[in-house]
């Protein structure tokens, strides 16, 4: 056995340093692509233990890959260089809510949905709502800077963090930011670490902002005969003085897939639907609902459906949640992207997707958070079909190019990880990427923390096929 592993085993209880084949395989994947076997999985239970792992890893130059629940869609926790998976999901979960400050301090293993659940007891909410919130840890959400449907009105994870406790790659424990809403003391390290995908430090605590929970919500569903028209209607709504909490888009392929999977009565003859959620005081909602109905009519909507009960509204949102599993029935492998464009460019981006779909003869469907320009084009394929996967690789590349050309970005909320790293220079330019890399190198001189993520390795290309 290697020296470093022997030493690690001396520092931790036996059951928290996992080295069996079965255990190592169980931490070799996440919800994205790829399979990488770590040498060991270590489960720290406090920040000193995290520091211990990092100090040891530094001494022996062993890669450390932090991991929460492993729901990442971009490969963040994959141990691409072997070494250690640092499993933070078993860290004690603590939620310290301070309603009078409208803040909450949490440990990294807390499930994101539980923060909101706790907040609601005090009439508050924690706004970011990634669809995996009931499984994913806040630590993972912070590292990846996760979003969710409510991002349209409330922003993504980074907009709700005011302070962090972090173990640096060299094993020192630091605090960034603090407890106050306003804080301009020095360079904003909090924002630097949020979304750095575990490359700059291991988050062991966070102070988050909460907001008042809106007293009421109103759901509407609008159907369109043309995709372009749906896109234009979204833009029109957003410049008319209304800011919905969510504006979700589904194209016809998604509608049909959901209806085949678990029918809820979506209009399968529509080219696209938008599901909208307004939140606020009931009086405001009544006015805004009327305005939206007017706008949609003017924009040539086919139909505006207003659910008659909370139950019906819940069903519509459930249908939206079913898109992801439903489309998996089209073909078993799902390559899910989250390239994002300026909102006004959604119709153009949709046109581009149509062209790419025809060019590479692939099943591409689109749904997602259209209100903030964050579409999720999904390619349905079969990873056992090598030839098809090669076409998928090319299509993904063109998708990114199209998004960037329209002034967009590679990722709206999933992160870069392994899959999008090859395209970083395309968006940032050589110098831009180098400035990022310099930050990484100065924080992590030995390059042990989550190597192989965010930054492309020499000549790295997107590979989805296995010969």
């Amino acid at each position, binding site marked *: 056995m290697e020296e470093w592993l022997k030493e690690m085993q001396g520092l931790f209880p036996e059951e928290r340093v*996992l080295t*069996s*084949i*079965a*255990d190592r*395989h*169980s*931490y*070799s*994947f*996440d*919800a994205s692509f790829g399979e990488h076997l770590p040498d060991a*999985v270590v*489960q720290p239970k406090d920040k000193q233990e995290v520091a211990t792992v990092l100090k040891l890893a530094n001494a022996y130059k062993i890669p450390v890959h932090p991991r929460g*629940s*492993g*729901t990442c869609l971009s490969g963040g926790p994959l141990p691409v260089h072997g070494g250690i998976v640092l*499993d933070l999901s*078993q860290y004690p979960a603590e939620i310290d809510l301070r309603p009078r400050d409208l803040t909450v301090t949490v440990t990294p293993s807390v*499930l994101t949905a539980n923060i909101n659940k706790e907040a609601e007891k005090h009439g508050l909410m924690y706004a970011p709502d990634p669809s*995996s919130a*009931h*499984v*994913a840890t806040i630590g993972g959400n912070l590292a990846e800077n996760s979003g969710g449907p409510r991002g349209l009105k409330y922003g993504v994870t980074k907009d709700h963090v005011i302070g962090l406790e972090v173990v640096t790659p060299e094993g020192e424990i630091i605090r960034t930011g603090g407890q106050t809403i306003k804080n301009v003391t020095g360079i904003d390290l909090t924002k630097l670490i949020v979304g750095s995908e575990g490359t700059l430090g291991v988050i062991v605590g966070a102070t988050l902002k909460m907001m008042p929970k809106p007293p009421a919500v109103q759901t509407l569903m609008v159907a369109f005969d043309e995709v372009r028209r749906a896109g234009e209607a979204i833009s029109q709504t957003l410049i008319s003085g209304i800011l919905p909490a969510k504006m979700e888009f589904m194209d016809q392929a998604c509608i049909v897939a959901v209806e085949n999977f678990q029918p809820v009565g979506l209009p399968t003859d529509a080219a696209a639907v938008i599901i909208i959620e307004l939140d606020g005081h009931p009086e405001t909602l009544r006015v805004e609902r009327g305005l939206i109905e007017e706008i949609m009519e003017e924009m040539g909507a086919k139909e505006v459906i207003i659910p008659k009960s909370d139950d019906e509204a819940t069903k519509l949102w459930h249908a939206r949640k*079913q898109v*992801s*599993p439903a489309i*998996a*029935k089209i073909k*078993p*492998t*799902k390559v899910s992207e989250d390239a994002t464009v300026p909102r006004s460019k959604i119709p153009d981006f949709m046109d581009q997707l149509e062209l790419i779909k025809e060019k590479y003869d692939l099943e591409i469907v689109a749904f997602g958070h259209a209100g903030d320009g964050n579409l999720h084009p999904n390619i349905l394929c079969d*990873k*056992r079909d090598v030839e098809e996967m090669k076409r998928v690789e090319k299509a993904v590349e063109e998708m990114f190019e199209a998004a960037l050309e329209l002034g967009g970005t590679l990722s709206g909320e999933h992160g870069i990880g392994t899959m999008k790293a090859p395209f970083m220079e395309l968006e940032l330019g050589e110098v831009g990427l180098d400035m990022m890399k310099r930050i990484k190198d100065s924080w992590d001189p030995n390059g042990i923390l989550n190597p192989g993520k965010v930054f492309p390795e020499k000549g790295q290309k997107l590979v989805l096929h296995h010969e």
Partner: protein
Amino acid sequence: MSNLLKEKLGYDKTFDCVQCGYCLPACPTYETMEKETHSPRGRINLVKMVAEGKASVEDMREPIEKCLGCMACTTVCPTNVQYGAILEGAKQVLDEEKPRRLVEDFFFQTFFPSSKWMDALGNATWAYQKSGLQKISQRFGLTKKAPLPIHEFEAALPPMPAPKKRRGRADRYIRKRPSVAKVGFFQGCVMDSVFFETNQNTVELLLRSGAEVVFPEGQTCCGALHAHTGKVDASIELAKQNIEAFEQEGFDYIVNNAGGCGARLIEYHHLFEEGTEWHNRAVRFVECVKDISEVLVQLDGLVFEKTMDRTVTYQPSCHLQNVQKVTSEPLALLQKIPGLELRELDRPDFCCGSAGVYNIVNYEDAMDILDVKMQDVCGVDPDSVVTSNPGCLLQMKLGIEREGVSGKIDSVHLVDLLLEADPQPK
């Protein structure tokens, strides 16, 4: 890796898993064993690794054998992964690799399918309890010397009826002519020996509902325990016997009162290849299989007038809830009893840890799971915990003992509680 192994392991089915992790919060063993290796996603991945030759069959043994098979993961899986089929395939492969153990062979080839042995078990339990031996051996800790933690369970056994009473049961009951429905009663093995009274009470409820009840001859063990331990061939043989037994007359319902058995019975058609004669026969059988709670709700032939001043909570059998998808009926029946207060558990869908023979084979792990369950139960503070499966019932009794609240809380089968409320025919 051979294609045969891949097929047995359900390799193609593992691709339905997109590794989203939505199963993690639903899995009891992921919670108590604190690692991904003991989660549904982890297990499916390991099966795939074994099929691809990246891990050995032995590598997956512990994670697969420590799965409760509660199927809670299948109720939250967004892509409908056939976890049950993958698990059973893995168990079959593991079973074939393992050197045979005589005790286990006896257990599964002779003991469980045999009504004679089950009779003997029931009789022995009765004699043991009546003779005062139970008290003596409990006092001296004799049962604690048994190789498996039998002593824990035997304290939880219900009082046995005398062998004479058990032998005296008729195989055909009718009280009202014409009856509203003809019921074929699936008696089960443990249910019909250790829980004989519950079976009798089930018959009584059906009779009061206006049904005719028949115990078809030749029926045998459902085969659930065999399938759970990878003995697929044996479980197919048992299925055939049962299908044959219940084909002898036309039944409106084939009724059972054990969630675990019922879950096996309603999946009989999966044991045979589609299009074959046996598959067709199994489909016809399965169409009639119902849990007692479903039938009582459907027949709707009982009125509950007697007030029962009691607070209860319902611990659903995982197999009744997650495989048979029977969720609302037991609750609807409980709500009919005047005066009865029903308090729901915080996490009713969390397994109690009984899981067939899991609590005997993996005792320590089962107790960790039971402790989580009991914390929930004690928080609700009921007078009774109502269950719908013999294994759960024993496990809950054990949990109550372990918590030291046996004077305060008891555990009861739904059927027994319903009859205690003394409903009358409508």
